[in-house]
């Protein structure tokens, strides 16, 4: 049986926007933060600098995508409050004509953004580097954030609230029982035959979202993820899961 130390914290904000990769000019949002977005948020808390231009980093900077790479970190995401989406129109600068459009604005482009409203997520994090785990834990406990963390875009500054650090075990579900899972689940982790015991009163959604992204912003893994939009648990026939005392069963993306 595998075990690990798991950091549990909540992130919340009045608005959030986690841009879908395929909707650049009519921006839609994922219902939950993707693992690369969470890596960015935690990178801000740790004070890891972003790239200067895509793929180019200052000397001595380990990019967030490597600090929270697939081999080092795992995220599980729970929807705490029923998801709400609203559309908000933003006036963007029209910059495609010439460079001078930046400092002499004549044209604007109106774009409607899909935003999450009053979003609250609980994040479960495993980080296999003890020093990074400890530093992150200390910073979240003390709210000692290096840069300002935000939910997707900069005007959506985030509240980050420490909840617990818990030793938990991974459980193999060899019997193929239905297990109540509180987090979002990769469809690939479900058993193929009768994967979910659907409940008529719940509202399921699936999204294809980036799971692993390199420092050059190339997505190495997309997965189909299923979640329950009101924050209820999913009765899933899952291959393996983690049991977190006081919280419930989760599955890492």
């Amino acid at each position, binding site marked *: 049986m595998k075990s690990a130390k798991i950091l549990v914290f909540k992130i919340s*904000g*009045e*608005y959030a926007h986690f841009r879908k990769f395929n909707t650049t000019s009519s921006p839609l949002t994922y219902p939950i933060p993707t693992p690369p977005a969470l890596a960015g948020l935690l990178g801000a808390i740790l*004070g890891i600098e*972003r790239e*200067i*231009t895509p793929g180019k980093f200052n000397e001595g900077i380990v990019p967030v995508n490597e600090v929270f790479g697939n081999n080092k970190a795992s995220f599980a995401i729970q929807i705490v409050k029923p998801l*709400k989406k*609203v559309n*908000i*129109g*933003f*006036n963007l*600068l029209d910059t495609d004509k010439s*460079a*001078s459009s*930046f*400092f*002499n*604005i*004549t044209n*604007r482009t*109106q774009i*409607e953004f899909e935003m999450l*409203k009053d979003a609250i997520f609980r994040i479960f994090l495993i980080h296999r580097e003890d020093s990074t785990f400890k530093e992150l834990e200390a910073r979240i406990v*003390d*709210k*000692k*954030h*290096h*840069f*300002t963390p*935000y939910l997707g875009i*900069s*005007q*959506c*500054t985030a*509240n980050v609230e420490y909840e617990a650090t818990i030793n938990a075990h991974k459980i193999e579900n060899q019997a193929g029982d239905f297990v109540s899972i509180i987090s979002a689940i990769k469809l690939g982790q479900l058993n193929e035959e009768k994967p979910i015991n659907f409940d008529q009163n719940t509202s399921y959604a699936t999204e294809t979202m980036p799971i692993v992204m390199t420092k050059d912003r190339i997505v190495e893994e997309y997965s189909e993820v299923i979640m329950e939009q009101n924050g209820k648990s999913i009765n899933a026939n899952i291959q393996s899961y983690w049991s977190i005392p006081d919280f419930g069963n989760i599955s890492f993306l």
Partner: protein
Amino acid sequence: MSALQNRTELLFLYEVENTNPNGDPLNENRPRFDSEESKVLVSDVRLKRTIRDYWFEYKGYNGENGKDIFVRETKYEKGGLNDAKERAKAFSEKKEVVLEKCIDIRVFGGVLPLKNDSLTFTGPTQFQMGKSLHPVEVITEQGTGAFASTAGKGQATFRTEYKVPYAVIGFNGIINEKAAQYTLMSDEDKKLLLEGVWEGTKNLISRSKFGQSPVLLLSITYKEPFYIGGLRQRLKLETKDKNDLQIRSLEDFSLALDDLIDELKTYQEKIDTVEIKLDKRLNLTYKENTILLENGKLALNEIG
């Protein structure tokens, strides 16, 4: 000038009377509105524009004496061609020059491709979307325009306007000292930011914004990298005889600061100073007692 060293958190409240605080371009310029809570919204961009306008008009950031605003509206272009050429030159210069001249890039950040360089700065100062503290309604008004739709017609056109009769709108802001090291935002810039928030809101005398007035500005300077977060959400607006939709002035309600003050007291050790600026007409309460606060430094221990 050295970059500022302390983290600062801001709470800014202003009232609007019979105005359109922030038109929604995709909705016939109706006030931005959250229909779920019936509250008006104001984008962070609107507030930043207010501040930029103030710096440009009143603080000499108009391209002369090495003081400038980078993200400019066309209406700022007073010098015509010559001015535009100057700015094009500034644009192709190095980012160090842009940072030195342009206060808005230092304070709000920016993303720009320069000629031999690129400029990507996360702004040290971030404002969330502003929101009214209470439900409001949007009213529709018909007015006559000054001009006819086509030349020669005898009658001027009609126009439709959307306004809110009254609202108190709140903004949360954070200034991150770590990001300030990159854009070189200084303590002097912070002073100008606070001045711009207050005076800029007062001086925004356009047809649709006349009737805006700053009400409260709280700025918390922390000793260490920490901030409370969600200050506006800790305020409680309590009406007296009227319901929320009937509020028409600061006399119609009081603000309960219980949650805010308690939180400030909890984290007092992390706080260097709390400064407050307020409109004397605003009624404030703490634990159901009216409190009178003076402009300037707030002595937390003396409250309650």
